[in-house]
């Protein structure tokens, strides 16, 4: 078995270590900037040589609305990604399981619509939400609800594609036998299909969450008041052209802290990703 270890396990560790090293280089740099007492980019090297300090952290929380941004982002990205996953799972089921007129063209359109440059759509978004805000102030500019709605507009896009691909791998005999058992389409979806695709739901959820944590263009248009901002908007402001250097340390702390919820969500979802039930269930 010893000799076998290299072929079964050794290469896995080798790939893993190389990939991790690749991943970590810039991140180590960010960590070292975050701890750099000088707080500037030019004085930062890969490994901290100026000693350690937590000043950047205190300054970040004391000098900006960082805590508030953090909370806002969690609420907005959390709500929007859960809702968005639900919507795209529904759509993916329809695209995978039903054959209807205009199905493929709709799928293609879903993809294409995502490709339109967003910086051009800003004007239109202003136009729409000025109207919306006039009648329903709760959904207008400077509201989270408005922003979440815009995010949900994109929910059907990439996520549906992703999930549909996986739904397609589930044998249709599954549905057929359930139908014979008298299950309705809704029951098939909620009780049979969904549990089987938990890994992919978890992954798509994570991707959607990350996407929304990072989203910047719409958020900066919607949320202008400092206490309303999301992390992406607040952090970008910190490195806005001229200001870049002075706040680099703070910015790096912010960047690292931003990664925490994502990693947390990933750890939480890991078990669903890893313990996919598919293999066993298909045998029926």
């Amino acid at each position, binding site marked *: 078995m010893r000799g076998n270890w290299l072929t079964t*396990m050794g290469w*896995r*560790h080798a790939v*893993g270590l190389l*990939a991790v090293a690749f*991943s970590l280089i*810039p*991140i180590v740099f*960010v960590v070292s900037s975050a701890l750099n007492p000088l707080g500037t980019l030019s004085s930062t*090297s890969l490994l901290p040589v100026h000693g350690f300090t937590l000043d950047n952290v205190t300054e970040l929380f004391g000098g900006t609305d960082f805590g508030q941004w953090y909370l806002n982002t969690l609420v907005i990205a959390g709500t929007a990604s859960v809702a968005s996953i639900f*919507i795209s799972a*529904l*759509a993916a089921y*329809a695209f995978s399981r*039903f054959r*209807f007129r205009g*199905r*493929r063209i709709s*799928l*293609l359109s879903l*993809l*294409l*619509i*995502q*490709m339109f*440059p967003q910086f*051009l*759509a800003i*004007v*239109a978004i202003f*136009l*729409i939400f000025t109207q919306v805000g006039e*009648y*329903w102030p709760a959904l207008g500019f400077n509201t989270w609800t408005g922003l979440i709605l815009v995010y949900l*507009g994109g929910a059907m896009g990439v996520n549906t*594609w992703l999930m549909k*691909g996986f739904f*397609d*791998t589930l044998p*249709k005999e*599954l549905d057929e036998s*359930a139908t014979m*058992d*008298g299950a309705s*389409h809704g029951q098939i979806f909620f009780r049979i299909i969904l549990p089987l695709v938990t890994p*992919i739901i*978890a*992954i798509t959820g994570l991707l959607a969450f*990350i996407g929304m944590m*990072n989203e910047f263009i719409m958020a900066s248009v919607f949320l202008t008041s400092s206490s309303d901002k999301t992390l*992406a908007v607040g952090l970008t402001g910190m*490195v806005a052209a001229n200001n870049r250097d002075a706040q680099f340390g703070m910015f790096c702390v912010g960047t690292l802290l*931003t*990664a925490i919820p994502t*990693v947390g969500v*990933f*750890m939480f979802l890991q078990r669903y990703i890893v313990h*996919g039930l598919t*293999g066993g269930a298909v045998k*029926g």
Partner: protein
Amino acid sequence: MSTRPPLSGVSGQLVKILVLSVVAALAIWAATPLVHAGAWVGLGVVVAVTALVFYVYLSPRRLPAKYLLPGTLLLITFQILPVLLTITTSVTNYGDGHRGDKADAIAAIQAAAVKEVPGSPRYLLSAAWRGENATDGELVFLLTEPGSGEYLVGDAEGLEPLDPGGLTVDPEGRIVAAEGYTVMTPAEFNAHSERITGFAVPTEDGGIRSTGFDAYEGVSTRTYDESCDCITDSETGDVFVADNENGYFVTETGDRIRQGWQVNVGLDNFTRFFTDPDVRGPFTSIFLWNMMFAVCSVLFTFVLGLLCAMAMNHDRIRGKTLYRVLMVLPYAMPSFAMLLVWRDMFNADYGLLNQLLGLELDWFGETWTSRAAVLLVNTWLGYPYMFLICTGALQALPRDTLEAARIDGATGFQAFRKITLPLLLVALTPLLISSFAFNFNNFNAIQLTSGGHPFPDASPQTGDTDLLITYTFRLAFNGSGVDYGYAAAVSMFIFTIVAVISGISFARTRKQEEVYR
């Protein structure tokens, strides 16, 4: 599946009733302000959408619609509608200097030309309604001239002296109450800003206008005359005639007033794009690099992501969670932040990369090093995404098929190539296409790192690492103002190209989709 008990339909019905009641409640909530405002078109839309929702969910048929409706409604409102609105701007000159309509432009021109009458006094201004206890109606200006201590009232007819006996003033001399008028509080004054700032009491030399809570005598040196559709400048005597095709006022000698308006220019933006040699020339080379960038980005991220996913796809590998977390980290960090960090690392003199590797490469200074650099960064950013997807996909593979292959004596690599990869591709092809589409337009990956560098001297507008979208952005935003119309036209063109490519690749997925059917 027969082990599962037959499912009862009662709970489903309950959910349906609950959801539909929420929809009804939302509809009523949405309709109320529309009814108040008399916005009947909006109301019509709300009613129609509500009716559609009820029809789809109550009808025993329309199965796909039941699943597609929520997403589709959101998609239409917040994605398709903005795109359609944007597309309509491609046949206009919408952009800086041509934002509003003609009336806006005329108002702006006249307002910008208001000059204070030399030597005229400043007044303390109180805005008021004519009549006691009025809250609306005829607007008048109650003025105090601090120098002479005169009190005046101005309406649309002109100025008249005011009897000081009926007035109450504050220590500064500003009128706070007047017999026969209802003086506005500052808050009311502010709330009626639009009307007040648009109002002028005609005088011999011009008009008394407000500025803040003061008033001054000003005269607009530019006036619009409808009969000739022109603007006359009283100072210079220039006559600017409206050019309704291009959306601005212009003199015979070609002098233009800056404030123009939005007009329909037909296909001008498209012809400009296709006939301008400066734009057409570099287009092919940008397009080729753009294709290469997108293809390589997808390929590199996919290969690396899949490799990592395969490596970690083993029950007994030690430290698996740690590996996975560390691999996902690049994706968890805010991408714009990391792009900026990478850019700094590539700095030729001060960057970390040259220091670490002992190189003196001017990364973004040479075509191919710059291209390699942006691809490296993009791979770093994107591979965790592919890693996650592939991990999920590997988990979802039917294990019996794999076991069967192993029993058949296939080696690891054969099994991968013959069984695992084809199965993975079923699930992942759509995703690879969408990833291609995303990278084709990956604005940030270029803009925040190489910024399009290097640029040849002769054409400082086209960089060797420019994508079509960064190039369009530069065309649109770096002239003498933002030109949305032109940018929309160019985007439409690019969009068409991407659509065709994606459409063709998509057509090939039909077969794969049916693998399990």
